[in-house]
């Protein structure tokens, strides 16, 4: 159980719940509710039904023929972009909304970067008839306007956050402050495998369906449930953990996580936490984070709002320390190039986040006999402006 969480909420030395006492009861209650539903047959049945009929799971595993020919290997895409709302984020929000219901919470809050988690939260709130408030950095509101419109159409209130770099980190701070002020009636749906215990465990649980499906689908298509490698992008790290988790104990499966290095890892404008970060505390969790020598959290930068985060989930920190996952990085330009290539070869417009995973293909040498799965975590409708503007340059 090298990669499982311990009784105190740690993966190795990372994790825990470094939060003000004001949130102690909330996390305690959440942990209890999660333990209850994790083994509750009725809950599991209802959740699975919704995952099938509402989300559209299982998401297809698609053999990308032309991309495979180009890279002289066998590339499969896990099509999380085909989920309802267009990304993997809904796997988590749909699970957590049941937790909220079980705890009789009437009000849901969330943070969002690219807006995918915000949309997925607004969606499940509409589904359950619950009030929804989404905190979003002012910078992100500007660069992901279509998702702001979607959240509002779904009945959510989007609150712009003007502190700090006005991106995901600051939106998360503001969501935590809201929760501190509304401990009784509110559930905070965190969108990634970050935050205090038990969030990393809960989000990992709900996202791990991605890897479980990959194993089944790959066995059907190739006769072998294990790929040679899985590649996923990582900001907080939920789609990567979702794709990797099932394969963690099978050390033969190589796992690659790709961070956004923005304008380059040494440019000062980057979000490559594993390169530029060191262990500390961010958003209630002990993990790697980008900070200055005095322990002040630094402002990250990445073209993709979903990867623009100075921390990373504690399980990732542990997997990095244990060398189970290879952490790589791709610049803005690498990601854009990879996205245009995917459009050209496969007719798929990926989310800018997911494009970072595709950028790794150029950097890893695969054999013709290898099987490579890329987690295509989201679709690129929200990024059209960025794609169009950069294409013209």
């Amino acid at each position, binding site marked *: 159980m090298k990669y499982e969480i311990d009784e*105190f909420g740690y993966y190795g030395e990372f994790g825990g719940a*470094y*939060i003000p006492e004001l949130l102690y009861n909330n996390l305690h209650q959440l942990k209890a509710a999660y333990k209850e539903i994790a083994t509750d047959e009725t809950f599991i049945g209802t959740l699975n039904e919704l995952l099938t009929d509402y989300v559209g799971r299982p998401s297809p595993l698609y053999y990308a023929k032309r991309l495979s020919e180009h890279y002289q290997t066998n590339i499969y895409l896990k099509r999380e972009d085909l989920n309802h709302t267009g990304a993997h984020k809904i796997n988590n929000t749909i699970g957590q909304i049941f937790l909220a219901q079980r705890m009789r919470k009437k009000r849901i809050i969330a943070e969002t970067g690219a807006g995918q988690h915000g949309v997925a939260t607004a969606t499940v709130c509409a589904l359950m008839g619950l009030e929804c408030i989404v905190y979003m950095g002012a910078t992100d509101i500007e660069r992901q306007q279509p998702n702001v419109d979607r959240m509002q159409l779904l009945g959510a209130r989007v609150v712009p956050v003007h502190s*700090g770099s006005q991106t995901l980190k600051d939106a998360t701070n503001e969501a935590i402050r809201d929760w501190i002020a509304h401990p009784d009636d509110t559930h905070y749906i965190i969108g990634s495998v970050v935050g205090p215990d038990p969030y990393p465990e809960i989000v990992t649980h709900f996202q791990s369906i991605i890897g479980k499906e990959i194993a089944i689908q790959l066995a059907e298509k190739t006769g072998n449930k294990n790929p040679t490698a899985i590649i996923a992008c990582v900001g907080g790290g939920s789609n990567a953990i979702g794709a990797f988790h099932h394969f963690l104990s099978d050390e033969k499966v190589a796992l690659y996580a790709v961070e956004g290095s923005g304008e380059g890892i040494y440019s000062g404008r980057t979000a490559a936490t594993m390169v530029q970060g060191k262990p*500390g*505390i961010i958003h209630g969790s002990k993990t790697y984070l980008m900070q200055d020598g005095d322990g002040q959290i630094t402002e990250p930068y990445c073209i993709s709002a979903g990867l623009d985060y100075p921390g990373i989930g504690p399980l990732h920190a542990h997997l990095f320390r244990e060398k189970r996952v290879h952490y790589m990085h791709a610049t803005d330009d690498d990601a854009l190039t990879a996205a245009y290539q995917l459009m050209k070869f496969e007719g798929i417009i990926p989310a800018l986040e997911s494009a970072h995973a595709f950028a790794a293909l150029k950097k890893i040498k695969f054999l013709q006999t290898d099987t490579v799965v890329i987690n295509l975590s989201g679709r690129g409708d929200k990024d059209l402006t960025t794609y169009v503007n950069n294409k013209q340059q």
Partner: protein
Amino acid sequence: MNRIKELFNNKRRDILTIYFTAGFPTLNSTIEIIKELDNSEVDMIEIGIPFSDPMADGVIIQESNQAALKNGISIERLFLQLKDIRDVTHKPMVLMGYFNPIMQYGAEKFCSVARKCGVDGIIIPDLPLREYQAIYRPFFEANDLAICFLITPETTEERLRKIDEVNTGFIYLVTSPGVTGRQVQFGHAQTEALRKVQLLHLKNPVLAGFGISNNEGYKIVCKYVNGGIIGSGFISALNNGKQSISENIHQFIKSIKS
């Protein structure tokens, strides 16, 4: 003897603690503010260590933290400022800071340098009780530093007793849910929460904070617990009008104590 213990040995009621952000409004305001507080009716001085992401703080303290960081404050700088502070004041001094900067500075070194400067107690709002007990406690004990934990009206009695057991300075009672700097109306729910804590007869003295910004709030909490802590209200008052910082401080303290 630790000055916090000494204070509560001599005085059990109406303890007034003032919080301010180190390095704000200017880098060197830290000492100036301590001097003025020493020369006032304030019983204890709480110095905030600025952090980029203060998650339990409202806008006023967030902004003072940002400004202080811009001014160039750091733990290193703060300790240099406090080097000779015991020539300036004999009042108990508490440092309040989020855990990450302390962790990066080194928790053990932090405790020993704090002690050398004459600091009496530490508040780390995001350091969990369990991790304190398992890892950090020896550093505090070796340096005779009091550790002050937060509690809320929702904290269960079982947990309260546990905190009371480990806590060594005063317990910081958060008056009602929410971040610092809100205007709390001390209605029935708040006074009931205060009364509940009062009736537990904890071993540690209790000071109430979060949302106390004027004479009225201060007087109400003093009826139930050992005193109150004022932060955001004080920080707002620092830059009020055309008066000097000194005048602002004395005017504010007077208004609280009137």
